[in-house]
């Protein structure tokens, strides 16, 4: 209101007595906003629960993926793959990818790498020494992806990106063994660090600021990445004739390799109107995604996307792909949602097993008093 009234008064020759305070106020307001932004950027790590959910989600997905492909591991990543280590190395020279898996052609080395990868995924998902594990996890995901570059689909591609981005986030602050350790230390009255004054204290402050900034930038990049994903997927579909005339789903439902339940696919394929509606809705939701994130409308859109991906998982037999997309979508849920989920989880754990709950509360945010200090 004030701004619109003051705006047409530029600052000509008459002494701008009345405009000066307004200009000052306006610049003050801009400064305040910049200030607020800087405080947020440097002091408040955003969406810590969402980051933890990403860690758990992708750690679990990759673990499940590696376990699922365990019988095929040599065929996909091993020295016996049709994409031989020699071919992979030639490709690395061209493409710039790197992989620890091609450092040796020995079968034993490969098996050790596989075991390390499984353990890494498990520890990353549990949040044990999370920062170090996140680096290791990124190395694992990149290595396995690069080694079998011609086996990957969109889900694998997304997991590589997320694994790299997660290195920069503080994804171990919630729902992790690290969080549990700090909680136990705090309840035991141990105030770690903060002892040496002066420069050490100041260095510590600077470190905390940098960690927070890195985390916030990482979360921003992740959010932007997911927006690009959907924006792209939607806008390229808009150009397609088959999406335009509403028959795209008919073709997708008839691709043999993505039709694990032919009867189900045929049944859906029989409903022309349904197929057209779902096809249009898919394009609409994907294109709209980046624009609805800042309002209430994001919740119905996220629910629609969840439904879409669950359907893709079942009807097309792509559970890992869908899982990767669902985890990415969940980044946009606020922390209060995750806290509510956490409370609900704790309550059900307490209700289902009174005494057993104590043992299983390792990764869940257990009530502090229920955990006695171990050996301190």
């Amino acid at each position: 209101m004030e701004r619109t009234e003051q705006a047409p008064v530029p600052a000509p020759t008459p002494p701008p007595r009345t405009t000066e305070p307004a200009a000052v106020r306006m610049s003050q307001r801009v400064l305040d906003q910049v200030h607020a932004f800087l405080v947020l950027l440097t002091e408040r790590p955003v969406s810590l629960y969402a980051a933890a959910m990403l860690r758990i989600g992708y750690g679990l997905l990759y673990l499940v993926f590696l376990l699922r492909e365990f019988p095929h591991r040599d065929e996909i990543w091993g020295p016996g793959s049709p994409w031989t280590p020699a071919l992979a190395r030639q490709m690395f020279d061209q493409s710039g990818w790197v992989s620890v898996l091609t450092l040796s052609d020995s079968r034993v080395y490969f098996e050790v790498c596989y075991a390390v990868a499984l353990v890494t995924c498990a520890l990353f998902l549990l949040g044990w020494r999370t920062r170090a594990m996140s680096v290791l996890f990124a190395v694992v995901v990149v290595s396995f992806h690069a080694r079998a570059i011609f086996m990957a689909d969109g889900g694998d591609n997304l997991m590589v990106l997320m694994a790299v981005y997660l290195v920069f986030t503080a994804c171990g602050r919630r729902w992790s063994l690290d969080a549990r350790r700090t909680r136990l230390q705090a309840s035991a009255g141990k105030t770690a660090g903060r002892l040496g004054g002066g420069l050490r204290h100041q260095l510590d402050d600077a470190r905390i600021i940098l960690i927070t900034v890195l985390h916030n930038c990482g979360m921003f990049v992740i959010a932007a990445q997911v927006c690009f994903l959907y924006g792209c997927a939607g806008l390229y579909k808009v150009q397609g004739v088959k999406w335009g005339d509403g028959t795209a789903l008919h073709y997708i439902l008839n691709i043999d390799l993505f039709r694990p339940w032919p009867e189900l696919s045929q049944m859906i394929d029989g409903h022309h109107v349904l197929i057209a509606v779902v096809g249009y809705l898919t394009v609409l939701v994907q294109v709209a995604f980046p624009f609805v994130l800042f309002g209430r409308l994001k919740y119905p859109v996220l629910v629609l996307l969840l439904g879409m991906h669950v359907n893709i998982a079942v009807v097309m037999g792509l559970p890992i792909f869908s899982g990767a997309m669902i985890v990415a979508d969940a980044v946009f849920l606020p922390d209060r949602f995750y806290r509510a989920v956490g409370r609900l989880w704790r309550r059900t754990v307490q209700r289902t097993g009174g005494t057993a709950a104590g043992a299983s509360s390792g990764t869940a945010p257990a009530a502090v008093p229920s955990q006695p200090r171990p050996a301190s």
Partner: protein
Amino acid sequence: MNVKESQRTDAEPAAQDGGGGPRMTHDISGPPRLLTAGTGAAVALCLAVALAHVLLVFLHVAPPNAISKAYSRQIDAWVRPVFEQNWRLFAPNPQWVNRQISARTKRTAPDGTTRVSGWIDLTVRDNSAVKHNVFPSHTAQNMLRQAWNAYLKTHGGNDEPRSHRAVMIEKYLRNIAADRVAAQRGGTFDSIQLRVITQPIPAPRAAGGFRPAAAASTRAETRYLPWWKVSSHGTD
């Protein structure tokens, strides 16, 4: 910021006192100027890198345009390989063909006579591995399919490889086929041939307004690849 500003003003006399050297005796006061400046620079760097990354990824995924053409080298240098991405999922149009890939093998006896095997359907194996499977393997859904897509991309309609990449893909496809034939049927062979039948998925049946005229385009196409020498197979 308030805290920081007060720290900065505190730090100023300290830095002047110390002459900018490493001797910082003012323990209770704010951080030394150098540290504050360093932190500020690092924060600015983080922010700049994040924004630049988002911009470069955008240019990478967007359709080619004036900016991405002008800076394609810089964009590639940053984005490839790790941030490479392609979100044209079933777009602009979903795949509208099914491919049936088969292989047969040839064995040349010491006396010069050759024996050619019958066709072995490799795709039907993948399809049956996917059927009624809640969690199909990448080996069934992606391996042969993506290898053939890569072959099409590097070779087009011509079976003569024209690039180093094309030779590599050809070897990959040959290895997949040879491994599968060896696993499925065994026996010895010294060369292998692939046959790819491309079967268009028919348009939806004429229910309420769909043209039934698409029948002409539903004819299958068959492509025979040249015989490829296989060295490492057929010993078992």
